[in-house]
């Protein structure tokens, strides 16, 4: 913010903090093309100019794609209840993955364990998964020639404790002994409000056209 010259607002108090809040930040070790944050400014600024200056000030690989002026009412976290992910599994045959996905879908509940800040927790991963499918082979990128690479398409609802891509992969291990030979690569493709039709609505949309999110 300082490098970009953005007039960021600070909290009151003995040690003022810049007003930046991240909405459902991606976990460590995954790629993301859809991260959202809200910033508070001291003065009105042109969102396009803020976007451009922040983008220029950030390291390569961190790109600011869009900025809108937030309208009062709902906050960003209220508009994010699901994420879509693409997970590449190098060394896994698409058929093997499809069988694991079928077993996962058929299960009523898939319990996995993870070490959280509160200690070791066991929780269900099946319930949070809104959609899970294997991308057909023809659509798969052949970046690693000669090695099969199955690709998983995933939509996960925001729940507590959060279900992350690696938890779903752990679920596939539980139901079908799926053990990828190398660590899979997960990329978050979108975040937003999950509609009844299964689409994800861009959380900035409401500020862009002025239609409150609840009235869609």
């Amino acid at each position, binding site marked *: 913010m300082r490098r*970009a*010259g953005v007039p960021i607002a600070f909290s009151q108090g003995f040690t*003022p903090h810049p007003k930046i809040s991240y909405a459902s930040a991606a976990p460590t*070790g995954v790629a993301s093309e859809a991260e959202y944050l809200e910033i508070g400014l001291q003065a009105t600024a042109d969102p396009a100019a803020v976007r451009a200056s922040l983008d220029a000030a950030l*390291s390569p690989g961190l790109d600011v794609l869009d900025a809108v002026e937030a309208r009062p009412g709902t906050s960003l976290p209220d508009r994010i209840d699901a994420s879509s992910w693409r997970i590449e599994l190098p060394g896994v045959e698409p058929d093997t993955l499809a069988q694991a996905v079928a077993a996962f879908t058929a299960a009523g509940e898939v319990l996995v364990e993870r070490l959280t800040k509160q200690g070791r927790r066991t929780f269900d991963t099946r319930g949070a998964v809104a959609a899970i499918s294997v991308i057909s082979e023809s659509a798969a990128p052949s970046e690693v020639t000669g090695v099969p690479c199955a690709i998983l398409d995933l939509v996960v609802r925001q729940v507590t404790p959060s279900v992350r891509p*690696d938890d779903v992969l752990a679920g596939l291990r539980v139901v079908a002994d799926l053990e990828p030979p*190398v*660590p899979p690569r997960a990329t978050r493709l979108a975040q937003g409000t999950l509609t009844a039709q299964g689409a994800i609505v861009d959380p900035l949309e409401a500020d862009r056209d002025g239609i409150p999110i609840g009235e869609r």
Partner: protein
Amino acid sequence: MSVPSVFPQLEQLLPRISKPIQYVGGELGAVVKDWDSAAVRWALMYPDAYEVGLPNQGVQILYEVLNELPDVLAERTYAVWPDLERLMREHGVPQFTVDAHRPVGAFDLLGVSFATELGYTNLLTAIDLAGVPLLARDRTTDHPVVVAGGHAAFNPEPIADFVDAAVLGDGEEAVLEITGIVRAWKAEGSPGGRDELLLRLARTESVYVPRFYDVDYLPDGRIQRVVPNRADVPFRVHKRTTMNLDEWPYPKKPLVPLAETVHERYAVEIFRGCTRGCRFCQAGMITRPVRERSITTVGQMVKEGLEFSGFSEVGLLSLSSADHSEIGDICSGLAQQYEGTNVSLSLPSTRVDAFNVTLAQELSRNGRRTGLTFAPEGGSERIRKVINKMVSEEDLIRTVVTAYTNGWRQVKLYFMCGLPTETDDDVLQIARLAHEVIRAGRAATGSKDIRCTVSIGGFVPKPHTPFQWASMCTPEVIDGRLRKLKAEINSDRSLGRAIGFRYHDGEPSLIEGLLSRGDRRVGAVIRRVWEEGGRFDGWSEHFSYRRWVDAAAATLPEFGVDLDWYTTRERDETEVLPWDHLDSGLDKDWLWQDWQDATSGYEQDDCRWTPCFDCGVCPSMDTEIQIGPTGRKLLPLTPVASAG
């Protein structure tokens, strides 16, 4: 031939380790250059974790100085934590740089900056992970030349088997000279192989190449002599001194990490060197003479450094920052400039002097109050005379009370334990001082809400200081004194409650003492500890005293010496010290005289304000004190907040 990035292999390991972000690079200010178009390639290492190594000034300065040359490429590498080391060995991933993730073994040079000797085991890990033979003598032209620098390089003898060369003193010009020699040697087709290259470096008289020197020992274990084993190698190797700091305004483009690090600030050295003459202080002895950066250069660096980095904290660094001839104007100028912004200014390393409280007050104008630390170092007036820390009890009380009355609720007092001639009583005086401080503070402020923290470090005698001959106390003596001190502090419950007590136990200090004043035979101990799993010895959770003691017991007896011989033994005037052939400029006779003065309580003034006392540095190094005042002011006088 181009060198592929190891990142694809490394990436697969990252999900399985802690804090993977420290290995990905991508910092603002990082430079990635084309491998093939570089004539000389340096890997620069700080041998500790990324979070500690990244902010290191020395590495950042050399990184920038080297990368400014169009045909030179410099990248950085840091010690990897044991979790990643294990996986790298399992998957055959070599030690890599964080900039372009190139294998360290492919570089021409590996420069390692040692601020402390406790990084030696991490050096071995890095060399080994790089696929470079541990022993310098086993390396070929295919391997990088391993060069040690930093303060510990003033006695590199304990790592003489593992490094190819060491550079004493300031690195800016030294790396350029070494680069020139490597560039020419490569352009000629690497004549004479590695041996010829090292010989060319050694002939500069400012690069120490241990293999060209033989060490002979006396039957009692002491060194008989250290002599060159080649005709054209100098008897003594001299330190480098960068003069005119205004001509070297680095770092200009400080690295801004994505990961969290120990210091997140723009640090500017306001001067180098210190002639206060504290007898325990190696930094003060080996960095002479004092060379100030002018007020205008400091102002310019702060302005440009902040604009480039976006940091909100500025550290005005030096060994005794309040001694800058224009420190008052620097502080008020910067405070005025950044008033009303969120930039905070700090002045570490202050002396015990009410003037410092004024400066700190000035720097905290925009409400941000940094901590105040004062370092009387010794508890009794007597021991402070021994160490030449000229602070009276009155000064200390007055200074701390000034801080309390100016609104500081908490101050930190730093002391050492285990100093030469120290008795239990000298240490117990720390409790009395702390009690006095609280009592006077309460009286002056009328408040019970004031505190002080007493922080204690173990004294380690260092080469090139008047205490280089001194014996160390055993850890048992140190720990015993600290126990008694703690009881004494708490003997008055009301005062004791207002006093925090922090200390390090004596065991790591003893090992640091072994490594500081060790000779080449200590290399066997380091290697043994490393083979037994020793890593990150500067971290209490990784340091194992037992491992060092056992390794010393297993390796030293064959030389007729032991751990005590290196640490608790006092040396006499005629003993050849392992670093005598390494010239810091200090005259050994002067150091001995100062050691004698220490034990008789004779104090030594500072040559910045009193006549030269012939420590030997300026005439032998052809240097001079460079100080202001310049009389200039910081411009513009427009505060940043209102200008923006």
